[in-house]
């Protein structure tokens, strides 16, 4: 028996030539026969389908659900309309990250979407603080399947399978509808920098949903996409990944995520520490780097000024869309200024790089 969990689509992935690798406790396809670059370009130009069942989902309900959410995360969820979905994160009281999350406000409950690797840690943390609130938290990750359909043709593809007018499901909102006859929660959300959807439905329908979407998307050039394409797509859009840009040794101000925080809604876990960082930041900042010398910057490579190592790369690669060698890295002020020339130590050889604007690729929904 494998020590890793398999999603309900495991056999489909293998049959499609998926190259299965361990990720966050699951065996998932890093790529299919099409290869990571073709999969990446399919999402930028047409559409891609991702098995993201490893993601965790919690339901929060009860009279105090909103109060509890206000207390455990920084966004003012009181501003969220019903059927709205927004990004946020969880912090320890010292202001470092526990996880980043997505919050869905539904008519009678809230959904919280968490990273697979952090599911049990998040649940424990939330449970630790829920006692004085009149609400309940339920982990529905196991019976709930999650797929992502992303790209400029995502709406066209999904519209073939549902009677719901998808023009009504605007960016960062959600709706319930039948998709290929399956009861589905559709969120106009994603992790690629393109328009698209993340869909939640019963696990036993996973194969039927997967096959229906692949078939419906054939004319548009939809490809099944693996973890490698998911990473290169989110990297170009500079969307953070837990364990890389955000972790228990990083904090929201340096990670450029303080825009999520509301300072007027009342106390929330981590507020004082994050606010202190915002007012007197002296740690490292997340920056974008473009290689001036040839070389592939990769995670953990040191970033140096002269002989001094000042930071490190959190994610780096050749950007498939921009055809440049790019990296996200943490460096202290004043090296975070645009245009600053730095060195990335690529297998201990210093290679020139400069600080450039983030995101590398402006997401479709920000144009």
């Amino acid at each position: 028996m494998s020590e890793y969990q398999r999603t309900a689509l495991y056999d489909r992935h293998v049959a499609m030539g998926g190259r299965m690798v361990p990720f966050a406790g699951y065996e998932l396809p890093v790529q299919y026969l099409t290869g990571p670059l073709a999969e990446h370009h399919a999402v930028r130009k047409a559409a891609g389908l991702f098995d993201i069942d490893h993601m965790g989902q919690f339901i929060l309900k009860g009279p105090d659900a909103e109060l509890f959410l206000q207390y455990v995360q920084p966004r003012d969820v009181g501003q969220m309309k019903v059927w709205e979905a927004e990004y946020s994160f969880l912090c320890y009281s010292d202001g470092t990250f526990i996880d980043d999350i997505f919050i869905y406000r539904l008519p009678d409950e809230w959904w919280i979407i968490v990273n697979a690797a952090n599911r049990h840690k998040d649940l424990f943390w939330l449970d630790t603080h829920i006692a004085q609130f009149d609400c309940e938290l339920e982990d529905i990750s196991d019976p709930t399947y999650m797929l992502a359909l992303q790209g400029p043709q995502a709406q066209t593809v999904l519209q073939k399978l549902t009677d719901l007018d998808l023009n009504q499901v605007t960016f960062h909102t959600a709706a319930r509808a039948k998709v290929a006859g399956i009861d589905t929660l559709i969120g106009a959300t994603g992790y690629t920098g393109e328009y698209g959807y993340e869909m939640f439905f019963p696990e036993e329908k996973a194969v039927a949903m997967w096959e229906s979407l692949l078939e419906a998307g054939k004319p548009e050039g939809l490809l099944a996409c693996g973890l490698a394409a998911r990473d290169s797509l989110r990297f170009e859009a500079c969307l953070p990944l837990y364990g890389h840009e955000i972790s228990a040794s990083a904090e929201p101000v340096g990670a450029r995520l303080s825009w999520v925080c509301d300072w007027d809604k009342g106390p929330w876990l981590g507020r004082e520490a994050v606010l202190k960082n915002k007012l007197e930041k002296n740690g490292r900042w997340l920056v974008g780097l473009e290689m001036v010398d040839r070389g592939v910057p990769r995670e953990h490579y040191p970033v140096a000024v002269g002989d001094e190592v000042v930071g490190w790369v959190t994610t780096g690669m050749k950007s498939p869309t921009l055809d440049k060698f790019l990296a996200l890295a943490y460096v202290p002020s004043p090296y975070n200024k645009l245009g600053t020339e730095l060195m990335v130590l690529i297998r201990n050889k210093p290679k020139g790089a400069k600080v450039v604007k983030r995101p590398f690729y402006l997401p479709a929904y920000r144009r």
Partner: protein
Amino acid sequence: MSLNYPNDVRYAKTDEWARYDGELVVVGVSDYAQDALSDVVFVELPALGDVVAAGDEVVTVESVKAAAEVVTPVSGEVVAVNAALEDTPELINTDPYGEAWFFKVKPSDLSELDALLDAAAYEAYNAEREDH
């Protein structure tokens, strides 16, 4: 997808191939290697005139997934490098035995070629690796 094992080259267990043309030894990586690497995005070649010994790491190949070192299966002087790979490293995925040769060596010890595997032995070796 089945992999190609042409008979006109010999193979190292580290997945390089070598083709002796009567004067020079041309070196590249096998179809098995490019398939395992997946999409290649970067190649760093040796310099012309480098004197290399069999087993030296002389080329770095980076794919979407990872970096890999390529060793030279023969000793000698590097007398040609395929600069086209710097701009079009994807040739390694599309034509590993042809357009994607890495470098040419003026060999100093041709007997080193005898230590390499023929196509059938290399294919069998890979089949065994896949089983583990």
